[in-house]
Structures are given as C-alpha cells and as structure tokens.
C-alpha cells in the first residue's frame, strides 16, 4: 500500500486588520498516515543545520485506568531509555552522545513526548534508533526495579515545592472518577509499589506503544520526502494494536469542595480556585472563550492583578489557566498571598471579579488586545526548530494535527464580548468549584 501524503501550505503573516484571519501556523506542513496508522508530520524551516524530532504518544496519566497503577505513563518515559537487543541502553546513550544530540522526554496528563534535537546529517541515525526502541524495547525485571527507584527520586526532588503539592491535592479533591484525579507523577503509594509491577509494565507498553497512538513530528533543516522515506523504512513494519482504555467520565459536580494542606515549613500561603471546564474544542467557542476570560480577568494587566499585586500588594503571584485537555478538566486561578489572614479576602476578590465578568460583557478593545497577545505569543515562541516542534506536539496531543491550532485561532478571532460573558456564567459557577489552600505552621485555614 502507498502511504497517503498530504501537503498543506499555510501562509505566513501577522496582519491583524486583514480578512480573512491569517493562519497562525506560518509553515508548510507535510502530514501523512502510514498504513499502520502511524502519523508523520514534517515541517521544513529556514533555521539551518538543526533538526528536532518530537515523538508524541497520546498516552499520559489520563490513560492510567487501573487502581494502583498511577504513574505508569511517566514511568515509561524513563523505561524507554533502557534499550533494545540491537541498542543496549549504554549504546543508545553513547550513540545519542556521539551525535551531540539533546534528548529527553516528558509526560503530562494527555501525552508523553520524546524529543531529540541534533544536526541534520544524523537524521537517519535518530529515526532508526527511535524506531528500534519504540518497537523493540527490552528491559529486565532488575532494570525495571532500579528505574522505578529513579522515579521515586524524581518524586523526592519535586516534593519540596508547595505549588506541586497544591496541584496534587487539587486534582485529587476535584475529581472522583476520572483519571485526571492523579497527576503525571502518580500517587506516592503507587510509585513506592512500582518495583513490584514488572508484569503490568509489559502490559502497559503492549497497549499504548503502538502506531495508532503515535505521531512523529520532524521540524528543521529537512526535506519531507527524505523524512517520509526514512520513516517508511524504519517504522513501516510496526504493528497496529487494538487496546482502547475505558476512561471513566466524571459525574457533574453538584456542590463546591474545599481542601487544605498543612505545610511543615514556613511558607507563603497559597490558594487555588478551580472550576470544572469543558474538554478542548476547536469547533466550538468554549475553549477559546475560557482562555480569553482567564487572560482578561487574571493576567498581569487585569484589574484584579493591578489591585492585589501592584496597589494593595497583598499577593505576590496571581495566575490563571484555562484547560486544553482531551477530557473536561479545570479552569484554575491561583494566588500566593503574603499573609494567611488575607486568604479569605483574596478568594472573595476572585469571586467578585468572576461575578463582574458574568454580568457585563468585556470591552471589545480589551478582547482585541488579548487576541493580539495570543498571536504574538505564538510567533515569539516559534523562534527555532525545536520550539516549533514543541508547539506542534502540544496540539498533536489533542487532535493529532497542527491544523487544530489554526482552527482554535479562528475561534479566538470570532469571539464576541458576549461569548466571554457566557463562558463565565456557564462554567465559573459555585457548584463546580474546588478551593484548595496551603499554609505553613501557624497559618490559619
């Protein structure tokens, strides 16, 4: 069978006044699916010599459906460096070193990504070695047990961060059924039990490290035809799988929730206020509207930031994030407060701000400023092949194509002040709210 090869040429440009809205992603993209359902996305850029490969596996902590096995998607981020019959872990890392590549991986709730940045003459070596480990990973039980300790080491090095603890407690409190209840590291008790789960790890790999879950993104000083030939050569024989996880949907939240963390050392109090929010969508306005709402209500030029951080100076950090997740997740507003006594005040101020946005549509000038910012954010972030690949990877995790980025930006462009008001009214509601606070010794709840 001949692989389907589609070329999509997207125009460059950032003119805001012109209609129709220019595509946000300015590079020509070659996207194709191999017969085994592996997807390949190649993007030639004019940054010389360097090539970045980002291999996205649409498996993250969201896919960890069985109790007692949280953290396995992340564990594989480690195990994937354990080698194959052909390339032992030593030979793999020596080869990666020899070609002077920067190579690493990361895991989030929706995906795991393996990335390598290197000189263009090593493209074949990299695609060949990556194909080998994705198809022929081999590790002994002893190696598995040792690596699971490195994961515990990672948990340990993270454990001095209050923000990490706050987020961990937030998802655990806000979710009952859905796997978003745990974060990518997993629950500590499951990490501690990992050494005993060798057989389960083999099952996990067999389920998810399959072409239908995987997208190869190659960006940089390349010709798509060369990349295509190499991917067919080394990845063409990879076998399609059949597993589909049964991820339990979260029942609608019917009352506000709270939790508190007593931190053992002196620290500044934290508060995180989260609302259940819809899954990522590039065909309706919710994702775009909530994103813009979070920006207008809580970012550095918002009225609330001006009040709490600049004028009253009661808060030293105020952040908000609207979700871009495969399933419904949380729209979260977090603040670091200077005095524990101000926690309640800050929560009231956030509620009052939300109420204003629910009642009155935003000024169209402010909406336009947010739209501009979103576009410039993208253009500023894409200043080298690696970061272009990184941006694509985050969207591939959602819809398996960078085209979704263009569609999302069309949604931003079409937003009206009333859309933003409706998003606030529909999603930032009391019964969908979870508040988590964290204070040090002597701090009041």
């Amino acid at each position, binding site marked *: 069978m001949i692989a389907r090869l589609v070329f999509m040429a997207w125009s460059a440009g*950032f003119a805001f006044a012109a209609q129709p809205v220019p595509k946000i992603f300015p590079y020509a993209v070659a996207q194709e699916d191999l017969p085994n359902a592996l997807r390949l996305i190649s993007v030639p850029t004019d940054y010389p010599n*360097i090539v970045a490969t980002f291999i996205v596996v649409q498996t993250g902590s969201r896919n960890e459906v069985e109790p007692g096995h949280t953290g396995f998607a992340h564990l594989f981020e480690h195990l994937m460096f354990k080698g194959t019959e052909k390339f032992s*872990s*030593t030979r793999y*890392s*020596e080869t990666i*070193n*020899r070609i*002077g590549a*920067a190579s*690493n991986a990361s895991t989030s709730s929706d995906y795991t990504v393996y990335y390598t*940045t*290197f*000189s263009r003459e090593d493209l074949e070596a990299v695609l060949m070695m990556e194909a080998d480990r994705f198809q022929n990973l081999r590790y002994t039980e*002893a*190696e598995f*047990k*040792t*690596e*699971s*300790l*490195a994961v515990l*080491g*990672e948990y*340990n*090095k993270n*454990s*001095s*961060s*209050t*923000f990490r603890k706050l987020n961990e407690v937030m998802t655990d409190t806000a979710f009952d059924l859905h796997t978003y209840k745990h974060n990518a590291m997993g629950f500590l008790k499951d990490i501690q039990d990992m*050494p005993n789960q060798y057989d389960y790890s083999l099952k996990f790999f067999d389920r998810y490290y399959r072409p239908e879950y995987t997208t190869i993104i190659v960006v940089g000083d390349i010709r798509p035809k060369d990349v295509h030939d190499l991917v067919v050569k080394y990845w063409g024989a990879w076998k399609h799988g059949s597993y589909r996880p049964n991820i339990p949907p979260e029942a609608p939240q019917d009352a506000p929730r709270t939790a508190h963390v007593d931190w053992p*050392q*002196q*620290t*500044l109090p934290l508060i995180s206020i989260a609302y259940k929010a819809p899954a990522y969508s590039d065909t309706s306005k919710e994702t775009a509207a909530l994103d813009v709402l979070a920006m207008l209500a809580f970012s550095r*030029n918002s009225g609330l930031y*001006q009040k709490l*951080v*600049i*004028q009253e*100076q009661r808060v*030293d950090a105020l952040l908000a994030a609207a979700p871009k997740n495969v399933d419904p997740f949380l729209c979260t507003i977090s603040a*670091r407060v*200077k005095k524990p006594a101000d926690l309640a005040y800050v929560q009231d101020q956030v509620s009052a701000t939300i109420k204003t946005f629910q009642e009155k549509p935003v000024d169209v000038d402010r909406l*336009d*400023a947010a739209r*501009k*910012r*979103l*576009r*410039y*954010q993208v*253009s*500023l972030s894409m*200043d*080298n*092949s*690696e*970061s272009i690949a990184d941006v694509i990877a985050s969207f591939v995790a959602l819809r398996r194509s960078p085209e979704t980025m263009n569609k999302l930006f069309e949604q931003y462009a079409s937003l009206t002040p009333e859309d933003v008001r409706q998003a606030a009214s529909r999603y930032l509601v009391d019964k969908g709210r979870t508040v988590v606070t964290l204070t040090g010794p002597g701090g009041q709840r």
Partner: protein
Amino acid sequence: MRMLISLFLLAACAPAEIRTVALPSKSPLVTFRLVFTTGSASDPAGKPGLAYLTAMMLANGGTRDLTYKQILDTLYPMASDVSSQVDQEMCTFSGATHRDNLADYYNLLRGMLLNPGWREDDFQRVKDDAINALKVGLRGNNDEELAKEVLYQKIYEGTPYGHYSGGSVTALERITLDDLKEFYRSQYTQSHLILGIAGGYSQQFLESMKKDFRQLPENAGFQPRITPPRQIDATRVVIVDKDTRSVAYSLGFPIDVRRGSPDYAALLLVSSYLGQHRLSGVLYDRMREQRGLNYGDYAYIEYFPRGMFLLEPQPNLARQQQIFQIWIRPVEPPTAKFALRLALFELDKLCRQGLTQEAFERTREFLSKYVNVLTKTKRAELGYAIDSLYYRIPSYNQYLKTALARMTLADVNAAIKAHLRTNRLVIAAVSRNGEELKRQLASEAASPISYNSPKPEALLEEDKIVARWPLNLRAADITVKPAEEVFQ
C-alpha cells in the same frame, strides 16, 4: 601592584564606543540582551542583594513617564516582557518582540533602563518579592538550589562573591531606594554596557539605540577586585536542617580555570564525561542507572543556577572565578551516606585513572556537536557572543571546536591532575534531622546498601569498597544550620 595595573588598563580602555554584539537576520523577531558587566560582586559591604534589587526595580517598576501599570498594559498585547538576571559580574536585561511592535517595545525598554521612575510603591513590591524569593523560593521550596548556593557561599566566604546575589533577608530589609539610585548611578555606565541585539532590525535602528545609551555616565564608580577564594585546608560540610523528604547535596572546590584559560576545554570535557547536565555521564550511570539512588548526578566547571528547570545553561553568568562542582540530586535518607561516598569514589577513580582513549574520543565528539545545541536560539547565540566578548575569546562554538580538535588524551589527563582532587572540598547538604546526618558523616562506620533487585557481582564487590570509603571528616568540620538562618 596587579590592582594598579588593572585599574590603569580599565582607564585606558574607557570606551569611545559602547561595546555592541549585533546579529542581524531576516527573522520577524528582534531579540535584545543588554548586559552591564557589574553585579553582586559590587554590592557594598553590608548591602548584599543591592545589585539584584536594582535590576529587579528597573525591570519591574515604572519609568519617569509611565507607571508600572502602564508598562504592563503596553507590553500585554505584544506578548513581550523585559526580564532581568543578576549574577556576581553581570546584570542582564533581555526580551524579544515582533518587528511589528519594535518601536513601542524599544521605547519601553529604553525608558526602563535610562529613565527609571524610582517610585516608593514599586520599591516596596520589588523588595517584598526579593525577600520572599529567598525565604520561600530558595529556602522553602527548592532544596537542590539551596544546597548549591550554600556551597558557593561557603567557598567564597570573605571575597566579593561571598554572598548570594539574591542577598540576605535582613540586608534586603535595610536597603533603601537611595541605595538603589546610587548603585544605578555608579554602575549603570557606558563602560559596563554591552548592547546585544539579534534578528530583523535595521542598521539605523541600532545606531539610534547606541546613541540613546550614550546618555549613561561614561565610566563606572567602584570596581571590585575579584580575588581567588581562600585555600580550603580540609574538607568542610555544611548541613542545612529542614523538614524535607530527602537529602540534596552539592559539593566542590575552586578551580583556576575559566573560558579562555589553557585548560578550559579539557576540563569541560572531563566534567561532561563525569556528568553531562541532565543527559549522561559516569555519575549518572553509576548512581542513577545502575543503583537507582536518585534522579540524576552531574558535574560542572561553570556556575549553573536553576539547573532543575533547565536543560541547557543560561548565558551571561560569566565569572572570573569558577568552581568544580558535583550535584547529587535528592537521595532517600537511608542511602545518603552511601551516595556521598559513591560520588567521591567515582571522583577519586577519575583523578587516579583519568579517561581512556575511547571515552576521550566519545566525549570529544559529543561536545563538538553539542555546542551547536547550546546556541540553537537567537537568544542563546546572542548571550554566548556577549560572554565571548567578556572572556576575550572567539565565538564560543569556534573556540570550543578548535580547542577540542587540537586536544589529546594526554591534555585531558594532565588537566585532571592539575585541577581536580578529592580532598579539601566543601560539601553542602540539605536534610531533615541534620544532627543525625552529621553523626553519620563524622563516623567512618560502613554504610552498606541493599537493593530491590539482583545486581552484578562486580557491582556488589565495588559496593563493599564504597560502603567503607573514607570520608575523613571530624565532627568539628561539620556545621548544622537551621534553614531559617541561611541567607537570613
């Protein structure tokens, strides 16, 4: 005498023209890096943190014409920012913008650096942030960085590098707005400035920018004399005691090597072989991969803060004095003594045996290509070029590749002999129950380790040696400090 000569040279080199690093390209983006070659080493006595607060104030406060709110409002739609970084010898202001917004962005940047507003309310906010960065960011939430900064502070005690660039809590509380203005007036000068710009700007733009910055005073006031730290007479340990899950270490000693030194490239190759940051190396292999002791273990010959958040070092942290350093990421308390012994055992092996021809060639090949990765963004390329100007070397890529191409195994092993050692170290640890760790480290009792899986016989035999590896520490060489007292 040497001081007189250097002062004379400085006077003779007073710049007729502001030093500039320009990397024009067709990019739609314009990247700025403005480096003042002054920093925490120039903090006056009793005012550690002054350089840091001054830079924070410029980057996070209003100008004479605009309030900070107005600045944020203008920057917001551009998605741009002005950020600052302060180290012992450099204060860096950086940012990037799309060329659509170049004029507006530059107006802000210029106003922030040339016409600061010095408002009291901005100062209070910035000061609070700086104090909280110490109390909460460093002491509270980042054991690894804490150990690293405690190590630097101990090594450089009594020298211009002897305080953390972020200052100390009580000193920050005492510093006044007038102190900041004075530091700005004496240190933000043409002679200290290196203008860095990259991307899609015009030559005319650059010329007018240079003209603008001629408003700064020509020559700097106080210039510290950067002296080497005192010789360490015996290994010393500082344990920072706090309620934390695991034990984080950083250890090291001063080296007389920096970019431009004859042994720089050879010693860089050695540190890459021993522990290439977040990628590989002997320590990573023996400690994490073979024994599962922690998340990673690395070696450095240049200051590299924030390594837990970064895969590659940030430029513009150039220093005349550097240390050799090993970073042991947090280990479980029961293996803390073994982990320290293992790191020292591996360092000892390196010092005694050097590299093999194969390891030398492999590491050389890696570094020759990896240097391209270090400068993969315009931001980094610009930063490295500024550092090269400071160190008086050619472009970093060219400098390193040339040195590596000429290098032999004998050079590398000679550099190990000349610069590395396993005695007379400073070891910094962050740990719960510091007195207990002190008791363990002060005793030569064995610290055997057990595993959750079978290990090769050779490794178990090696463990027997490691478990009894002499630490040669007396209780008197080990200090335990509560976390609240560090950087207080």
